[in-house]
């Protein structure tokens, strides 16, 4: 069997080298030739034994390596989950505060600053809903740190009912405002009304002071630049 394999590979390489029309015929003849002429090669018992042992060892090695890899992966995942779980729980001092309070609805002491009060209310909300938003502070040893700041938040449970509702709303939205609906902007509608009205006036973005502020700022800059250029040219 080894010989056949070796024979086949040898002839395979020559086949590719040939690349001719008589490939098939040649291939057959070559095979026959090899099987007729050559004597079976000698393979010693030790050689085959060592080879077999080697292959077995290799197989065992791969299995062991795979097991180790899997273990490693599992360990990493477990660590990640524990880390996340730790971060999900509120900091120890807030937990203490909650524990020490009575069972009835307690009144938080009023602070003077509105922000602090809002934060406390937010905390109350957080413990009610179990939602946290925290920035990723340190780097985890085994995790990749993607560029930029990002927050981790638990996703609110979405039941199938809300999914269906979303699909229905998307349906209406796409039929009325989706592609092919030929819509324009309110600005254009009002500007056309201005143009065709009894007292004709300019388009709405020029009439109303606080509309299209970005475009207005850009236009101002352009105007200044143009004036400056004119002055430079004239000088």
């Amino acid at each position, binding site marked *: 069997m080894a010989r056949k394999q070796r024979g086949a590979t040898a002839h395979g390489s020559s086949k590719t080298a040939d690349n001719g029309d008589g490939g098939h015929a040649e291939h057959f003849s070559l095979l026959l030739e090899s099987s007729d002429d050559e004597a079976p090669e000698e393979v010693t018992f030790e050689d085959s034994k060592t080879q077999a042992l080697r292959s077995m060892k290799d197989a065992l090695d791969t299995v062991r390596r795979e097991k180790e890899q899997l273990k490693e992966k599992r360990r990493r995942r477990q660590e990640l989950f524990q880390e996340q779980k730790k971060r999900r729980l509120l900091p120890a001092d807030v937990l203490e505060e909650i524990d020490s309070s009575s069972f009835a609805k307690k009144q938080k002491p009023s602070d003077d600053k509105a922000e602090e009060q809002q934060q406390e209310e937010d905390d109350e909300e957080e413990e009610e809903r179990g939602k946290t938003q925290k920035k990723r502070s340190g780097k985890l040893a085994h995790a990749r740190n993607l560029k930029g700041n990002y927050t981790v938040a638990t996703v609110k449970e979405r039941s199938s009912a809300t999914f269906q509702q979303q699909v229905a709303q998307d349906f209406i939205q796409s039929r009325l405002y989706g592609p092919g609906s030929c819509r324009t902007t309110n600005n254009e*509608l009002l500007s056309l009304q201005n143009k065709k009205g009894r007292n004709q006036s300019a388009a*709405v973005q020029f009439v109303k002071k606080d509309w299209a502020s970005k475009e207005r700022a850009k236009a101002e800059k352009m105007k200044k630049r143009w004036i400056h250029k004119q002055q430079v040219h004239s000088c």
Partner: protein
Amino acid sequence: MGEFTVHRVRFFDYMPSAIRAMAFNPRTERLAVARADGAVEIFNFADNYFQEKVIPGRDGGTVEALCWVGPRLFGAGLNGAITEYDLENLRPRYSVEAYGGPIWTVSGDSAGTMLAVGCEDGTVKMFEILDETIRFQRNLERQKGRIISLSWHPSGALIAAGMIDMIRIFDAETGRATHRLLVERGAGASKSREVVVWSVVFLSDHTIVSGDSAGKVQFWDGHTGTLVRTHLVTKWDVLALAVSQDESSVVAGTSESIVVQFQFISSTVGRQDNEWVRTRTFKNHSHDVRALVHTETAVVSGGMDTQLVVRPLLDKVEKNTQESSLRKIAFPHRSLVCCAKKAGLLLFQFPEHLELWRLGESEGHGRAGDSLPVKRKPEKLIHLKRKGDDHIRCSAVSPCGGWLVYATVSGVRLYRIQHDNNNIGVTKVSKLPKSLCSAHQLCFSSDSSKLFAASGLSSVVVVALDPLECKHLHTLRPKSGSRQPVHLLCVSDDGKWLASANTDCEVHVYNLKKMKLHCKVPVYSSCPTAIGINPVTSNLVTVHADQQVFEFSLQQKEYTEWSRRLQQRGLHPVWLQRDTPVAHITFNPRNPAHIVLHDVFMLCIIDQSLPLPEARTPLLNQMMLRSLPEAERSRQSHAFKICKSFQHLLSMTLLDDQSLVAVERPLLDIVSQLPAPVRQKKFAT
């Protein structure tokens, strides 16, 4: 007369919600309007189109269709449940899950026994209407595709359902689908797009009228299932259809903001070969028309531009009368702004949050019509988000600016506000009495010691304010036992009287020192839209939906002399022809003879010491008076002084320091934030 510095407030970003569905009850003459945020409003068409009741919506609760069954109102939305509304307590009474996915349409049969809903999963579900609830009966044959619209045949035996690309006729007894009417797709590029039958109407002679997304209104024969006539009305969608009671006129509303009328008449006079002919076109909207109702005398339309338009048909009403005028209802008929008079703060009520602003300051004096420079800009002090999913129903701030309260369908929340030099602190008062579970109207006493909340059965709950725990003091009940909700509450400045008005047109006055009912004002046929108690004379002034003004003396328990004179003379015709109701009454502390009122388009000061206007002299004579010399002026001036400089007024109050606060919301600002309209190519643009 008086000079006032006016704070012109335009930073209230009030944004109304689009109208999604409407239903008219011809027996009680009430129109129910469902908005995109889930709120349901009831308009009384018999009482000058007054917006009587508002049921607030909730997050995620859309209403796709409304339906009256007798005096009961049912609504269904994309959350898959059918809701019955309690019109006495202004909340949803109960919800029944239909288990068919989002519900697109709901319709009751003419007998009032069955309710059919069209669902996303392709089933038409039949519910039996019982006394206290509705109960699922059975499904009709399930179809492959969502059921977008439904219509019962007047006999109750057949149902026409509009789906995608077709209309199905069901037999209501057996539940089988008998006919299938295939609707043609649009021409050209829209051939590849499926056509959605947005609306169907089943007439008693078995004609089916359908409006679809290809812009056609088609008339079908229901017996044979064949197409009789097609009218291509618009390039965009036909979104709504409505038929008149006598089935001689059908109106169709489109995305192009036009409403087209078809009438069943013969093309030549005298002959009897009637057919459906397109007659009138109404162009009263700027954005899509999504809901239509055909009453006996008018066509009512509403859509994405949030305005409710009532167009009387000129062949049913007399021309050139008050009845035949076009009505556009764009702003709510109740006040969304509360002013803390002593502290100079304004509270704005939005459906999902409250904003508390401090008014700006200016200095210097000027002549009439000048703009004074602003020394300190108005600033937003508090932005308070509501807890839970329900929208805010009513809110109030105390005159000293120290207390803030709001109520939703599920509860009342009270907050204490602390002002420390530059800091504002908001604390919630957690211990509230159990009787304060829900309120229809809220009002603080002028010394900020008590809170008045109007709750069920027209009663008023009085609560003593305390930062730690508020105690229930008393519940004031009217003797009439009316079940209608209270929509107006007003307390006098000296803390002695409390007046409440409910939608049964009753006004009750309570004596707060003795904590009992003092008297009930004689019932007038029209609902009161604003009430106020004069701080000096203790007279109760009421203005009603038909623009009548009354003054009632609380000490003598009878109408005052001035009020009798006004009724004898009659109000000026221009005053009676105004189409927006008076939303707020306030008084001038320096001059007890002044009554200051406003509606959306005008501000009026009634001076009781001046003579009443004659019917033939012009009512709006302020500009003319200014040009006259002093002597002439005193001869020509009359009691009603109207100013139209500020529009559109959402609220107007008089502060203690003789300055007026006018909260305006220009219509242009609202239109600019609406969704996109269709692109219409007009000649020469």
